[in-house]
């Protein structure tokens, strides 16, 4: 039974190692979130949940006030006026809470992103607006007359206009940076996919499907690069925004953000297409590897195999894969609200030798030798 279990685990593992070995220098995407990332993500999620809660309360209070205003607004008795003022106060307070929670979400995004690519102090602007909202909250708490509530509402509107525009602007910059990272990674992925095809071709496999998928992948990435270039030109001019990141012209800034948003959506659409091609590639690659066949038989205490052309021979003992990071990999640092992607450390380094693949690792590692028409994998202790 123990041998049967070993067989079930080891054979697919060998296939997985073989697939990995095709992508020279690439690493399996393991979500190895560090402690810092975990904390950042936790903070972001708390802020996002708070945003959703405050939005719900705000929408309810706004609705209640609108209805009350229609019913009670024209009445002159004290009771109706007091009731309406209370509902106005509730609406204003929930609106301020909602605005503050939006700022906290954006703050999470900005402070957890890679430093230095936002060319102004976004955090200072966010903190400044948070302070303004706190002061306004005190005014609303102390307000008694209808005029005071109206004045507070006017002041809130001015702050909110800036918040709505400026937060979209910072997020747009962060988003552009994320897109740039993805495009850079895609160029790296493209090289890996082509390298894998060459190795498979060298082994006599039909790679027509895979080649088409890589071609479609590259086309999608090229389209994304074109729209991203236009987006970055727009952001370089940042119409309607001052150099310090604040709004200087509401209409111009709104127009710039709408144009930028439209282009970013186009870019994401193309990158999604590219991502789909990678998934198709890996799925088809798996089918190809399985189709090549793995012949194994079970013997007491281990697995013995009879290698034939195109088959995998394994002589397993306990052991481990030791890894050495290679240069040229794009390391993405996960930011709040996202899943960690390609880790920086830990990958299989492969050396393609004539007639085969040799994966060389340190003591206690895996030596993989590709023999003519097959793969020999020796797990050593």
């Amino acid at each position, binding site marked *: 039974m123990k041998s049967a279990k070993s067989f*079930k*685990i080891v054979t*697919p*593992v060998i*296939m997985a*190692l073989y*697939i*990995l070995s095709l*992508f020279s220098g*690439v690493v*399996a*995407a*393991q979500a190895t979130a560090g402690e810092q990332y975990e904390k950042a993500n936790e903070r972001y999620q708390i802020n996002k949940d708070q945003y959703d809660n405050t939005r719900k309360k*705000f929408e309810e209070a*706004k609705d209640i*006030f609108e209805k009350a205003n229609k019913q009670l607004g024209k009445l002159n008795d004290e009771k109706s006026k007091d009731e309406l003022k209370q509902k*106005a106060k509730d*609406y204003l307070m929930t*609106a301020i809470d909602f605005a503050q929670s*939006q700022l906290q979400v*954006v703050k999470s995004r900005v402070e957890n992103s890679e430093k230095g690519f936002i060319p102004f102090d976004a955090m200072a602007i966010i903190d400044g607006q948070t302070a303004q909202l706190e002061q306004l909250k005190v005014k609303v708490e102390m307000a008694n007359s209808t005029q005071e509530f109206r004045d507070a*509402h006017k002041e*809130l*509107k001015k702050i*909110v206009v800036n*918040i*709505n525009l400026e937060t*979209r602007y910072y*997020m*747009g910059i*962060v*988003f552009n940076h*994320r897109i740039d*990272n993805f495009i850079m990674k895609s160029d790296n*992925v493209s090289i890996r996919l082509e390298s894998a095809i060459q190795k498979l071709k060298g082994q006599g496999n039909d790679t027509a499907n895979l080649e088409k998928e890589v071609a479609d992948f590259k086309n999608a990435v090229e389209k994304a690069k074109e729209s991203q270039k236009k987006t970055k030109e727009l952001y370089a001019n940042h119409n309607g925004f001052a150099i310090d990141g604040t709004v200087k012209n509401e209409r111009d800034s709104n127009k710039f953000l709408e144009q930028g948003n439209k282009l970013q*959506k186009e870019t*994401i*659409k193309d990158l*999604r*297409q*590219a*991502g*789909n091609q*990678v*998934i*198709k590639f890996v*799925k088809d690659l*798996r089918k190809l590897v*399985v189709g090549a066949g793995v012949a194994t038989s079970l013997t007491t205490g281990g697995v013995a195999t009879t290698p034939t052309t195109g088959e995998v021979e394994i002589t397993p003992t306990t*052991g481990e*894969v030791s890894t050495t990071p290679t240069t040229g990999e794009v390391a*993405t640092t*996960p*930011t709040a*609200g*996202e*899943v*960690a992607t*390609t880790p920086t450390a*830990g990958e299989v380094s492969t050396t393609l030798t004539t007639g085969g693949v040799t994966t060389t690792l340190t003591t206690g590692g895996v030596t993989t030798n590709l023999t003519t028409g097959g793969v020999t994998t020796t797990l050593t202790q």
Partner: protein
Amino acid sequence: MFMIAVFTLGCVDKNQAETTMETSTGSSAQTSEVTLTPAPGEDIFGTYSDLAAMDNMSQDMDMQIALLTEI
């Protein structure tokens, strides 16, 4: 590392030869393109998770506070 390779590549599975094209609608409210969902272990380059994270971020970009015109 050995066991991580086993599980993250999703290879402890009898039926790994039978892969299906799972599809899901993009999570962004603005787009309706179909995103293929990788089976366990197929997101080798992390592209799928990167795109999911960007979808998440694009939703945050649409945050807006809609106040009443006047009170």
